[in-house]
């Protein structure tokens, strides 16, 4: 069964054809600013397993520089949706807030915790932590 997702205004709709990888919370300043809260939460999924169903023309991509991951959002409602090697890479990231059903994958790790803002404390929830990026 595909896992459905959409933006807040409903114009962008997509589905995941496979379960995403275990998820990661990212506390870097770019994820914090694009989300408006402590950071982002999402997981990698093969690009071939993410099918856009509607609203592709509303997706806008912002990238700080060539090294930085793209931040993909709906320009009508501002919903933060995708990242990773968007749009054509073999692996993209999907923000879990954009999903409309349980992806079955859960957050297992918090990364870039050294960049966390003191006014948005990192919860002591037992998840693995990395000061910067995670390198398996």
């Amino acid at each position, binding site marked *: 069964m595909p896992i459905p997702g959409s*933006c807040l205004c409903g114009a962008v709709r997509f589905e995941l054809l496979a379960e995403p990888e275990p998820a990661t919370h990212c506390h870097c300043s770019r994820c914090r*600013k694009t989300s408006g809260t402590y950071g982002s939460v999402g997981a990698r999924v093969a690009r071939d397993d993410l099918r856009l169903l509607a609203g592709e023309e509303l997706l*806008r991509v912002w990238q700080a520089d060539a090294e930085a991951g793209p931040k993909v959002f709906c320009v009508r409602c*501002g919903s933060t949706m995708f990242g990773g090697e968007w749009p054509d890479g073999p692996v993209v990231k999907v923000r879990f807030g954009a999903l409309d059903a349980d992806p079955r994958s859960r957050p297992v790790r918090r990364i870039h915790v050294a960049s966390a803002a003191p006014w948005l404390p990192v919860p002591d929830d037992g998840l693995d932590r990395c000061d910067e990026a995670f390198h398996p």
Partner: protein
Amino acid sequence: MSARGSCACGGVRFEVEPPFIRAGYCHCSRCRKHSGADGEAQLRVPPGQLRVLAGEELLAFWEPPDDGGRKVFCTRCGSSLFGSKWPDGPTVSVRLGAFDEDPGIRPEYRGWVGSAASWLPIPEDGLPRYDETVPQR
């Protein structure tokens, strides 16, 4: 001392002057979708205490079909910046993720936890929780 903030691309800059009314998390489905995370984190102030210093032309908002809050964001980078009925209404909300300087206040509660997504567990951090809206103080 006012606290400054900005969007991720730096096009929008603002400052907020204390005192702040309150700060907390909202886990409603709209804040969840807008953030891409488990909801938004924000403080509230009277609108006169929030000044947009640059990039006002980059701001847009999504207006819900009911009386709910607007979602104000930068159209260049998608950063979530303000809420409530910005720039109108008796109070506006400013996303805590948008600050570049410590505003001094910390989240004091978690609202709308009854709407939280099962796949995004809410941290057990001891903050008071409300199934729906947070009682006005």
